[in-house]
């Protein structure tokens, strides 16, 4: 079947304004948008630039706006869109490097500020472990859905707040903040608080759910952000009125006496 592709072309180093290129490609039932784009690059126009790596919705590099909605090129079949004319643009809310490739630097700078890793306080225990922290199923379930993020940036492109407030932490980063804060092994919630509870933190999310509409991995950032707000509010209320904070429920330590702290040689 022949399908027409209308693709956004822009090279900031040379062009003063973007232009559109139109290509016709023969596709079969199984072809994804990424396949079609690569076909164009190989057979018609080698100057077309795009970014991809895994081809299976794992690496998160091929996000683009396809027919007006943010999708992964490798995770969208051409024929499932049910249209003869397919418009492809780079992600919104990101600077364009060239054609369909966008610059994620800002996003990753923001992500670093919320410390997206598990933080532990007891250095002693970390250096000389005496057992293991075996999570129960419900403990894992509290964060598992939100841990699946591939950092594709689709939610960032869709979010109405990001489109006007460029200091907003973005749904991807806030989802990450919740994923690590709710993790029963983590003790770093207070350290993240000054960033996620700031003027451009989680309270600038207004539950428009554009992020949940486009997430290709079923993360539902709209949900984790609201839970994050709940967590932050109860924390700051307790601190305000009782001057103390709730002890977080932690995973139980299963002692394993046979784990020796001295490495065996």
């Amino acid at each position: 079947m022949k399908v027409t592709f209308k693709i956004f072309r822009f090279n900031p180093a040379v062009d003063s304004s973007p232009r559109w290129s139109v290509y016709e490609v023969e596709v079969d039932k199984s072809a994804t948008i990424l396949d079609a784009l690569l076909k164009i690059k190989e057979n018609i126009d080698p100057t077309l630039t795009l970014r991809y790596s895994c081809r299976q919705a794992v690496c998160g590099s091929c996000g683009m706006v396809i027919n007006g909605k943010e999708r992964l090129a490798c995770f969208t079949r051409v024929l499932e869109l049910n249209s003869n004319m397919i418009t492809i643009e780079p992600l919104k809310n990101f600077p364009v490097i060239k054609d369909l490739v966008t610059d994620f630097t800002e996003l990753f700078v923001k992500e670093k500020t919320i410390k997206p890793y598990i933080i532990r306080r007891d250095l002693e225990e970390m250096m000389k472990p005496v057992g293991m922290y075996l999570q129960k199923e419900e403990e894992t379930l509290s964060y598992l859905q939100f841990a699946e993020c591939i950092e594709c940036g689709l939610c960032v492109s869709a979010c109405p707040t990001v489109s006007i407030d460029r200091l907003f932490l973005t749904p991807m980063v806030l989802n990450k903040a919740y994923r690590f804060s709710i993790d029963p092994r983590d003790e770093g919630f207070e350290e993240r608080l000054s960033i996620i509870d700031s003027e451009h933190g989680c309270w600038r999310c207004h539950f428009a759910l554009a992020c949940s509409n486009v997430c290709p991995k079923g993360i539902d950032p709209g949900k984790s952000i609201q839970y994050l707000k709940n967590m932050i509010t109860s924390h700051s209320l307790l601190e305000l009125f009782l001057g103390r904070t709730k002890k977080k429920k932690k995973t139980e330590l299963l002692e394993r006496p046979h784990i020796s702290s001295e490495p065996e040689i």
Partner: protein
Amino acid sequence: MRESVKMLLHYITGVLILITGAIHVLSGHFEAYGLIKSAELYSINKLIFLASILYHALNGVRVVLIEFVPKRWFTDSITLVLIIIGLAFFIYTSLLIF
């Protein structure tokens, strides 16, 4: 004040507006049926209503503004400006009520 507390107040005042606003609108009916006659109660109700609505409105404006002007200096100073405006309005209108 933390952003979470500001937003919690935003929601609380939102609900308060609903309650006191209903009393404010229905007070005429109450008095007509001779249910509650105390003028002081209605004045207090009006004051709570006024304070809530000023907070809710100005905080809403603040939220819209800091999103549309995402500059650090603006984010830091807008709160103070709006507090002054809010207090001025509150004093002016409460003088009108009494």
